[in-house]
């Protein structure tokens, strides 16, 4: 499965979507869910929490492991996807639809500086070898 070209990515396997209202939506990539396997628990950050780029802010847990999710840029959490409380497996079936949280970035330019789909694919490929 290819990574959507309209998203930005981090080396730590988060995807970032820029929304029309200036906020960003964050989830984990197809590659990340594939590594983790069946998802059973998601803990999103609290709305209002101020995050620094690369700060640990959410946790996704599969049957076999727990993994941290990092803030892709600095900013404030403005929403958390409570639908994942009851259906964490949505991350497996639809990783680019099952968002985890939304942020208002401190600086929009930080988002533009994240990896594009091609650069992210190179990260994935380098991990596989």
């Amino acid at each position: 499965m290819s990574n959507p070209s309209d998203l930005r990515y981090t080396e730590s396997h988060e995807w970032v979507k820029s929304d029309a209202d200036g906020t960003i939506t964050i989830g984990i990539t197809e590659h990340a869910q594939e590594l983790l396997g069946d998802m059973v628990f998601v803990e999103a950050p609290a709305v209002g929490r101020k995050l620094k780029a690369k700060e640990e802010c959410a946790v996704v847990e599969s049957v076999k492991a727990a993994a941290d999710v990092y803030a892709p840029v600095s900013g404030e959490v403005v929403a958390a996807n409570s639908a994942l409380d009851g259906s964490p497996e949505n991350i497996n079936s639809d990783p680019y639809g099952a968002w985890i949280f939304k942020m208002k970035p401190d600086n929009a330019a930080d988002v533009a500086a994240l990896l594009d789909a091609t650069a992210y694919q190179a990260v994935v490929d380098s991990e596989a070898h």
Partner: protein
Amino acid sequence: MGARLCGLALFHLKKANMTLKTTPLNAAHRAMGAKMVDFGGWDMPVNYGSQIEEHHQVRNDCGMFDVCHMRVVDAKGDGVRAFLRYLLANNADKITLPGKALYSAMLRPDGGVIDDLIIYFMSEQWFRIVVNAGTADKDIAWMKQQAAVHAPGLTITSRDDLAMVAVQGPNARAKVWQVLPQTKAATEGLVNFQAADCGEYFVARTGYTGEDGFEVMLPKEKVEAFWYALNKVGVKPIGLGARDTLRLEAGMNLYGQDMDETVGPLESGLGWTVDLKSERDFIGKAALLANPPSKKLVGLVLLDRGVLRGHQKVVTAHGAGEITSGSFSPTLEKSIALARVPNGVQIGDTVQVEIRDKMLAAQVVKYPFARNGKAVCSL
């Protein structure tokens, strides 16, 4: 995203790594779409898609596991029973029916657990032993060292020529008979924990899932054909991921997690396998008698949202404990764990588990959590 607690070496996925050991089924796993991981130095399948589906497959129907990495050891010669009676914490005298198996810990003189294993009584000149993969070399060295002193006439042979496949689930035995009809007459009457030597196939009614089924030992060069033949009659391959949740639900210890050389069997939930009542002496007995345990192994079910994992701290009214194995239980749809806690903790108590920066409530329960397709622990 970054790895936090990796039960199965999450980020050790490798496409090809020549330094890992492989079983004769390696190519078959890849052909069946397995995700391979480094499991204690072995290149093994963690799942073939969904670990949860594989778990239910075994509880509801049947599945097959590559357990070729485990080691078969044959102990042969006069006096083999007497030697095992001294070598192991459980009493080899308990098995007198031919083919009958016994689960036991093998202890150090100080009571620490070298390994847990299964012995099969085949004759007074032959006991078969199956040991864990990661401990096989040290186990065999220990057995040979002890035999040299206490039973020099015995031969202890690592059966590296044998492979092993576990077929588990309510329909497992019927599927094995479909593929190996020649073994049916000899294995139909096997009771739980009993094996039959059917020439090339050694068929044991044992397993590590809490379900009925067989573990089949056979020549290495025949195992791939056996695997594909089972698959052809509808037996699905199951990875190590589901193997771990199945054994945890069944309340079965995992060596290296729930016990190791630094803890004794009595604080590892293995008291039922240790015979301290008879006059029999065995390695580790004096240490066990001299050091009554202050802790015990209990089951936990998480009441709050989250997932219990190994090494999380457990806070109780009687002092601190630690989770030894924890995961999500697909059968209970809750998180469950085995935990080593102070003796004063009782079934039904509520304890706190430290998960990241939070204290979450868990209830102490009697395990197993699930067996024979059903949840058996109630809150």
